[in-house]
């Protein structure tokens, strides 16, 4: 019974923590431009994140190796260092975007000054990390992120065409021509990438070590990774469906957090709007914390320094100083007034470019019988994992050119 409760809580936490700023923006914009037709990219991204997350959790438990220790071992010091710098820059940009997003959501909720809210939010989140242990941080933000379900309820209440949704799970052939085709490809890559944000997986894998998972927890790892991600993807799909139903017929391109939140509350009243605002605030707060901690995990794991949220700050001084610095720098970036949506675009596209370099080493270790013993990748995981690697490499190569030719996905 206790085990079942733990698994349920894990799934709910994974579901609540699944959605972030990038997913909210990219999927709703994709729906606004192409209706349901990009749902297949979301389905592919879901398979990829399940494989990646499950493998990272299993490798962390069995090989007792965190991700960036593996990256250094498999890529060598120089290339590994390059990936560390790139990953942490992306974490920083993402953290700044999430902080900016939180201040916008809270501004819409309270009417208070965005700058003051930005500062107060950063201080509050820093204090929460400082005072709470890993498990509580994960649960508080994961569970409060469940408020995002209001978006799914709204999508269902608008009576979408389920037949069209089913058909959209397969790629559309032929692709749209000209700029529209490039835009379609850009959003396909963006959705795929938004689901595969590396910081989520790094946080999850480090969490498995923080919480002292053993091989007896591998079943839970599989269930949480697969079910939590699938339910999270359903929530993300709801955002795309809302974009398709509300914005596409009206020719609205939703490029603000306010309009996306309004879409979530549209079929209902004031209470739904407040729930949507709170849900977005919670989910962005969780993501901001994950990116800051992920930056600290990456650095310490790469340099083989003491790390862990559950260690006293003095015993993990570099770790503590790093996540605090991440917050401070992200606060400065967000404080310059740069558009958080622009930051999200950058983090999603460049995140895809970096991803093959962290995914590939994990795939190799997962398939290494000497390190993994009887928990080595099964044949199915090897086949699906390799197919995912191919997809990631293709998306990574296409991401920047598509970003340039579509001017960050701007419709013409």
């Amino acid at each position, binding site marked *: 019974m206790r085990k079942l409760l733990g698994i349920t809580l894990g799934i709910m936490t994974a579901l609540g923590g699944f959605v972030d700023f990038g997913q909210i923006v990219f999927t709703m914009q994709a729906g606004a431009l192409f209706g349901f037709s990009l749902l297949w990219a979301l389905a592919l991204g879901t398979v990829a994140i399940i494989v990646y997350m499950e493998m990272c959790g299993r490798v962390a438990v069995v090989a007792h190796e965190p991700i960036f220790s593996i990256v250094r071992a498999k890529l060598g010091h120089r290339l590994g260092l390059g990936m560390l710098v790139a990953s942490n820059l992306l974490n920083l940009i993402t953290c700044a975007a999430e902080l900016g997003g939180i201040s916008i959501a809270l501004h819409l909720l309270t009417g208070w000054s965005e700058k003051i809210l930005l500062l107060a939010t950063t201080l509050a989140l820093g204090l929460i990390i400082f005072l709470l242990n890993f498990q509580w941080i994960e649960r508080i933000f994961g569970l409060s992120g469940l408020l995002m379900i209001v978006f799914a309820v709204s999508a269902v209440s608008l009576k979408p065409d389920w037949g069209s949704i089913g058909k959209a799970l397969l790629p559309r052939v032929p692709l749209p021509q000209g700029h529209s085709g490039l835009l379609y490809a850009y959003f396909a890559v963006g959705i795929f990438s938004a689901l595969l944000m590396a910081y989520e997986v790094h946080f999850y894998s480090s969490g498995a070590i923080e919480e002292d998972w053993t091989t007896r927890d591998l079943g839970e790892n599989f269930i949480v990774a697969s079910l939590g991600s699938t339910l999270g993807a359903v929530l993300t799909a709801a955002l795309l469906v809302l974009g398709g139903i509300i914005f596409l017929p009206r*020719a609205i391109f*939703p490029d*603000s957090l306010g309009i996306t939140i*309004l879409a979530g509350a549209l079929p209902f009243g004031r209470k739904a709007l407040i729930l949507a605002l709170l849900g977005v605030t919670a989910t962005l707060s969780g993501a901001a914390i994950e990116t800051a901690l992920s930056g600290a995990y990456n650095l310490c794991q790469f340099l083989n320094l003491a790390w862990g949220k559950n260690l006293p700050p003095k015993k993990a001084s570099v770790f503590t100083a790093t996540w605090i610095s991440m917050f401070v720098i992200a606060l400065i970036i967000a404080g310059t007034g740069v558009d958080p949506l622009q930051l999200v675009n950058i983090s999603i596209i460049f995140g895809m470019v970096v991803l093959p370099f962290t995914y590939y080493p994990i795939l190799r270790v997962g398939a290494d019988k000497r390190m993994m013993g009887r928990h080595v990748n099964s044949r199915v995981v090897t086949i699906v994992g390799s197919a995912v690697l191919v997809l990631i490499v293709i998306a990574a190569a296409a991401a920047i050119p598509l970003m340039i*030719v*579509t001017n960050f996905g701007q419709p*013409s």
Partner: protein
Amino acid sequence: MRKHVLLGFLASYFLTVPLAGCSGTSSNEGKLRSEVRTALSLAAESKLFLDYLSPEHVTESFTTAYVRYLQQQTDDLMARLNRMKGPTSSQENLAECIKQTEALRSVLSSPVLISEDHARLISIRGRVAEIEANLKTLAKLQ
């Protein structure tokens, strides 16, 4: 050796991808088309918001903040349009887009938006719908 090949590939990738941007360089017509679409989207967004605007649906702080956001977006668009040097063939379209954006900006500046005067809100909604229709016509001409 494999690492050198990989590093070489990465270096050439990052050096050549900016070339992809050359094909994306927009002409003035392209930029105007994009701005007309932005104006149309803003008008449609404003109309959607006005449809939804009532104390049962939105909080006062949301209304105030959202109206301010829409005003800011319209101001930014107006500034971009004024900076645009339209080619002769698009000069009329540019002028029309500026006219409609200016009208939208004027409507969004109305204090009625953050009041509860339903009759005047309906009239404002009608005006926004008119602007949206004009921009739709303009978009079709592009």
